[in-house]
């Protein structure tokens, strides 16, 4: 019952956002980049359903276009973090001993590094563009994945079926790939959905602080950030993107919950 509700609402929200993103590729009410200095800061009305921003650009159009940008950045980042983190986590778990210890020192150091500084530092070098953000945030979240994968590897190494695999004559590497890795899949999927949410939030936080996907291309994050000085005079600038972020994240989190319930840990590993 619970599973179904979560999946339903979550799925609906995510589907809506994805639809927004896809729609924006072919059509938006106005060109999201088109300036109109005479129509600056107009409140929601007939011409512009969600009003206009400080350059006279239509907010609804920018919202739709921003959906795609925010989702793309988040998806790529999660991919980078999962791939890199899994690789490193497997290595640490496989080799153990000194290699593992050294890797963990690096991992902990990276974890202790506030994500903001890491992202700022990397992006200042790569420039504020999509790839810089993906790299920066991907690196910032990799340690979390490493910890998860390494932990799973270490705890599963000594299980009977893994021993059995070794006994048959499979090399350590094959054992890892064939038996241990698939069992990381479930927690990784759950972590991935949570991370997606964190990345969307982080991207908007970075934009807020002055870095992030560079304008004039809209992302929800930089729309929130540009709306800040106008919070009193033109509150609609900030409300729409914030609502979008919140609803998207809600959908992701609900889906993640449904996923976790479905992959109930009491399920036997393969």
């Amino acid at each position, binding site marked *: 019952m619970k599973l179904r509700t979560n999946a339903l609402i979550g799925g609906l929200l995510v589907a809506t956002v994805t639809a927004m993103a896809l729609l924006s590729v072919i059509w938006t009410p106005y060109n999201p980049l088109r300036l109109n200095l005479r129509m600056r800061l107009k409140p929601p009305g007939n011409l512009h359903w969600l009003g206009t921003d400080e350059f006279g650009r239509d907010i609804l159009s920018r919202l739709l276009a921003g959906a795609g940008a925010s989702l793309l950045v988040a998806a790529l980042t999660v991919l980078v973090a999962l791939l890199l983190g899994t690789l490193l986590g497997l290595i640490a778990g496989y080799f153990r001993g000194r290699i593992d210890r050294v890797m963990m*020192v690096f991992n902990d150091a990276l974890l*202790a590094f506030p994500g903001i500084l890491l992202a700022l*530092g990397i992006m200042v070098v790569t420039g504020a563009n999509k790839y810089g953000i993906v790299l920066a945030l991907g690196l910032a979240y990799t340690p979390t994945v490493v910890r998860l994968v390494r932990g799973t590897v270490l705890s599963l190494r000594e299980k009977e079926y893994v021993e059995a695999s070794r006994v048959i004559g499979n090399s350590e590497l094959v054992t890892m790939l064939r038996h241990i890795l698939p069992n990381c899949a479930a927690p990784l999927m759950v972590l991935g959905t949570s991370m997606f949410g964190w990345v969307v*939030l982080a991207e908007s936080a970075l934009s807020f*602080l002055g870095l992030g996907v560079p304008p004039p291309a809209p992302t929800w994050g930089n729309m*929130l950030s540009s709306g*800040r000085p106008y919070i009193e005079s033109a509150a609609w600038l900030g409300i729409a993107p914030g609502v979008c972020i919140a609803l998207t994240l809600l959908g992701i989190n609900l889906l993640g919950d449904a996923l976790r319930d479905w992959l109930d840990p009491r399920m036997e590993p393969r």
Partner: protein
Amino acid sequence: MSSSFLLYLLRRALWTVPTLLLVAVLVFVLMRLIPGDPAQLILGDAGTAEQLADLRAQFGLDKPILVQFGLWLSHMASGDFGHSLSSGEAVLPLLLERFQVSAAIVLVAVGAATLLAVPAGLFAAWKQNSLTDTVIVAGATFFLSIPSFWLGLLLLLFVGLKLGWVPVVGYVTFSQDWRAAASYLVLPVITLTLIEMGVLTRMARSSAIETLRLEYVTHARAKGLSELRVLLRHVLPNAFAPTWTLIGLVLGNLLGGIAVLETVFTLPGLGRLLVDAIFARDYPVVQGCLLFTAGIYVLVNLVVDLFYPLFDPRVATS
């Protein structure tokens, strides 16, 4: 507590040293790799090449990087964190002053969030799958989906500006006027509390559900203990353990991530100091701040590990 546990803690404590050293190296190198240098920033576009050279020499930036690192490290060892290149203030007192602000917010918020989240989580677990449970989980999920600074902005707009209940900008230190200082902190604390409550409630609830399924709980119920007794005496401590770990992670991370909230509420905290210093290429401040934050993160996690056996007796004996 067993001696093997203490030994484990000691080893953990020792391993923090290379970690912190690595952080120091990473910060040092990263800051100098980033384009732009503080002398250029201070002089602006009007600085002549000679003035630039003079100022760089004054800041010691003309020395080889290894020498700079060695000098910095040796000063730090004796407690001298250096001086800010932008403002000339001594770094350590600056850090401590700013830390007070951030720590006040974070500790109060996480404390309040824990006090509210754990009972709420327990309650939801106890009433699993009922309407109450759904409402609590929905609320918690909702709050952790909201960008913290957006929530802060909204609260600022409605509670601060429209209703005028609390001041929206400014700050005075506690020593100057503690009541005013507290009033400036109300909104940021509420914002952070709401957000953290989301995370903690869900964690408390899920670990409570797991515990409730365990056999010794059924056993306790069978013995005839009241439901409340069962909850408090058996479920709470065990459910709290993973929540406690999460608190450690949250606390450690928050100090770094609170920059955005401090920007919204214009508070002179540690997060903002770090961000401003990065933009100003204020090397001593960034380095000092990072090391300080990393140290706190490591310390908090160590303390969390120390108290873990209190909540999960299995750990201490393993």
